């Protein structure tokens, strides 16, 4: 029998996160251990081979996301992407995806597995936008943001990658592991007025 030795940064708060709110207000859930690969490409990188390795066209516009299945490619800055996908079934030192991207891109590409750097918190429901607005100055109104968009910004002064998944709305917050507990407790506090 193999034992999964991974412990997510918010494992201890899972019960509290699940107990707060409901479908009529806002709900929180950690999505632990998602694979994250940071991909940077020089101007002359063979992008078509990267597309093949990802089965995905990398978005060119900063702040846009391309998705296939559970794999997302977030454009964080010019020629800089964060590729995320479902967790590996068992702990690995490096996800196979990072190696595949390096093989495909050669010397013009840097692909680094950063899965352990951040954890993922999904914030969903009619009040999700209100909760985030308590600590985030980016305009998340539908006229300025929406599904398929992402950004790097500060949420309650913690640096995060923010992604909108759907119109529920569901926002995906990627936060550094060491800030995760602080941010989760801040989110629970910010939600107080909506969850009755």
């Amino acid at each position: 029998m193999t034992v999964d030795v991974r412990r997510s940064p918010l494992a201890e708060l899972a019960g509290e996160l699940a107990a707060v709110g409901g479908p009529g207000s806002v709900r929180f859930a950690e999505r632990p251990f998602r694979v994250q690969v940071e991909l940077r490409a020089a101007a002359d990188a063979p992008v078509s081979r990267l597309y093949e390795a990802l089965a995905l066209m990398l978005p060119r516009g900063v702040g846009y996301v391309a998705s296939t299945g559970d794999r997302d490619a977030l454009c964080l800055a010019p020629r800089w992407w964060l590729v995320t996908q479902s967790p590996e079934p068992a702990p690995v030192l490096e996800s196979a995806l990072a190696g595949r991207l390096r093989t495909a891109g050669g010397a013009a590409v840097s692909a680094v597995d950063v899965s352990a750097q951040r954890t993922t918190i999904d914030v969903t429901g009619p009040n999700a936008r209100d909760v985030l607005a308590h600590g985030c100055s980016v305009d998340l109104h539908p006229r300025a943001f929406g599904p398929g968009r992402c950004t790097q910004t500060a949420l309650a002064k913690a640096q995060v990658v923010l992604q909108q998944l759907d119109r529920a709305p569901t926002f995906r917050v990627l936060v550094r592991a060491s800030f995760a507990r602080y941010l989760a407790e801040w989110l629970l506090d910010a939600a107080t007025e909506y969850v009755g």
Partner: protein
Amino acid sequence: MLYIPCPWCGPRDETEFRYGGEAGVAYPADPDAVDDAAWSEYLFVRSNPKGWFEERWVHTSGCRRWFTVRRHTVSYEIRDPRPIGEST
């Protein structure tokens, strides 16, 4: 607080940025040939206009890119955000 338009991310609070001082200060073409006075001028002396000023910012909490803007030092109005090396 300033509201600074990042060329890639759009308008963001000043707290997401770090300041980089005057834009367009060229590194001396032949630094070995520069005397102490000219070198200290290059290092420390900047224009200090009352009015429009070309300056650099870096979006540290966002895309982490440097860029140039034109800021009015009296009204704090900011115009023409653009990647470094691009003129308006």
